[in-house]
């Protein structure tokens, strides 16, 4: 039943979903290779959770051809369910049960042999640092502990494809790092991860490929590097001691923006040493005194803002 290695873990064509008159997903196409981390990035309300809910068989799409782990979502929902694991943004643990009971519940529902189930549960409690808390009701757990238990429950069934819907939202920085580390370990073990996030650095750190979702459409897709290359976001910030210097520099250089309050001038720049030397030479020639220079290389923030802003302007 293992899917062909060349086949994508998730293949979506023409996915549409609307609630009443409101179009939530407007023709999504995407493909996720096996054993990779795919990150869906977008602001709140972009439709990220709706996509996860559709791909994990919780809700039905209005249109679209969707295959997960090689199975058609509409025709074989149970085969899809058997291959996936889901950890959402709201904890999916039984708060009235203890951590261990939650894991044993999952073992029973995956129809594992009792002894195997106990062993798996013990392993996961150990791996997620929940051995001590294992006997306490999940309602007493901190946010980070509940998220860890949630992930452990998702892993108990050894899924091939894991959906993580904003897995680090609301976590403290340390728990966040732990979750990142875990995601990397999972992928090393051959699992495919579909990750949604609103944190650009999270996608940048983890994802092999990123898709940007904005108002129900994918506005860009590629590796983090490809996306950063798409926009000329690199620039140099020059700060001056007084307005006269700022004026002089603005006349000398092709500035993209200037801030008279902070006495800062922004000049486009490709990040290369050669062009930086040239820029400094021109400032020297004009005898302009620069108080401070900072270099800004494009990051996903620039990509995201550029792509969503473009759209806003088109609307106006």
């Amino acid at each position, binding site marked *: 039943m293992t899917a062909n290695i060349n086949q994508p873990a998730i293949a979506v064509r023409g996915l549409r979903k609307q609630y009443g008159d409101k179009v939530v997903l407007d023709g999504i196409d995407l493909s996720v290779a096996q054993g990779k981390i795919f990150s869906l990035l977008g602001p709140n309300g972009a439709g990220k959770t709706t996509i996860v809910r559709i791909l994990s068989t919780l809700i039905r799409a209005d249109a679209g051809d969707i295959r997960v782990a090689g199975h058609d979502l509409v025709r074989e929902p149970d085969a899809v369910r058997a291959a996936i694991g*889901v950890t959402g943004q709201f904890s999916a643990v039984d708060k009235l049960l203890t951590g261990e009971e939650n894991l044993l519940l999952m073992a029973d529902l*995956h129809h594992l042999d009792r002894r195997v189930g106990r062993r798996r549960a013990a392993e996961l409690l150990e791996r997620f640092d929940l051995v001590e808390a294992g006997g306490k009701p999940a309602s007493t757990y901190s946010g980070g502990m509940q998220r860890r238990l949630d992930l452990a429950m998702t892993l108990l069934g050894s899924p091939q494809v894991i959906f993580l819907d904003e897995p680090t939202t609301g976590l403290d920085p340390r728990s966040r790092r732990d979750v990142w580390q875990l995601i990397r370990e999972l992928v090393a073990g051959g699992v495919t991860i579909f990750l949604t996030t609103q944190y650009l650095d999270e996608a940048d750190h983890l994802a092999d490929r990123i898709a940007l979702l904005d108002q129900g459409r994918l506005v860009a897709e590629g590796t983090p590097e490809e996306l950063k290359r798409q926009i000329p976001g690199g620039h140099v910030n020059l700060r001056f001691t007084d307005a006269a210097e700022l004026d002089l520099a603005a006349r000398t250089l092709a500035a993209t923006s200037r801030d008279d309050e902070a006495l800062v001038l922004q000049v486009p720049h490709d990040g290369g040493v050669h062009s930086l030397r040239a820029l400094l030479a021109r400032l020297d020639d004009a005898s302009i005194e620069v108080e401070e220079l900072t270099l800004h290389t494009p990051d996903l923030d620039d990509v995201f803002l550029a792509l969503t802003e473009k759209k806003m302007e088109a609307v106006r």
Partner: protein
Amino acid sequence: MSTMSLALRDSTTMVRRRIKHMRRYPSLTLQLVGLPVVFLLLFVYVFGGTLGNGLGSGPGGRSEYVAYVTPGIILMAMATVAMGTAVSVSMDMMEGIVARFKTMAIARVSVLTGHVVAAMLQTFFAVVVVVAVAFAIGFRSDANVVEWFAAAGVLAMFAFALTWLTVAMGLAAKTIDSASNMPQPLVFLPLLGSGFVPTDSMPAGLRWFADYQPFTPVIETLRGLLLGTGIGANGIGAVAWSAGIALIGYLWARKLYNRQA
């Protein structure tokens, strides 16, 4: 594994889950069982002397009223537990765990059957407690073993019906508050039927309602089996109401559980 044995296995897992909940937090169960016991004591010791004299048959007084009111209180206990079921279901649906269940390859109905079977066990417990208290304060039955079993069967049928109905209410409720309000009328139906006084003592309009509502035939059948009064058409009525309510409750619950946002 066949679909059927899979459904059975998953349902058993879900029943165990619900029983763990009840054992860990017994206060809700105790509250649900406590209310009918308080009503039983209240009606027998406070109103029983006077009400018993008004029954117009037998020796009258408190001892006769214990016998008369016990079937009514049993039905009240069932309605109270059913109310608790709606609340438990609604609380459960607000937890993320149910969304997880829906993304797993398990028998879909098992979450609901888990609730239904656990609620039936809770009902059984409540009825046993009420009957035990009733015996302790003077209730006596001349029923033989077959009649006791028949009585248990009638109660099980009606409990099954009320449970599915309140499971559906719990699913329909948007908040825990509305889940506890929706089934509230059920607790009052034994009072507005033949549970506490004979319906022929009521004014015409109320009497008509009391005679034709579902609790009355169940109470009368129970009285017939435990106390030897006439059952007549009430037996058929009890079965018909149970079957009808169970079917409506089941279909409603299934539709709500499978609805897709």
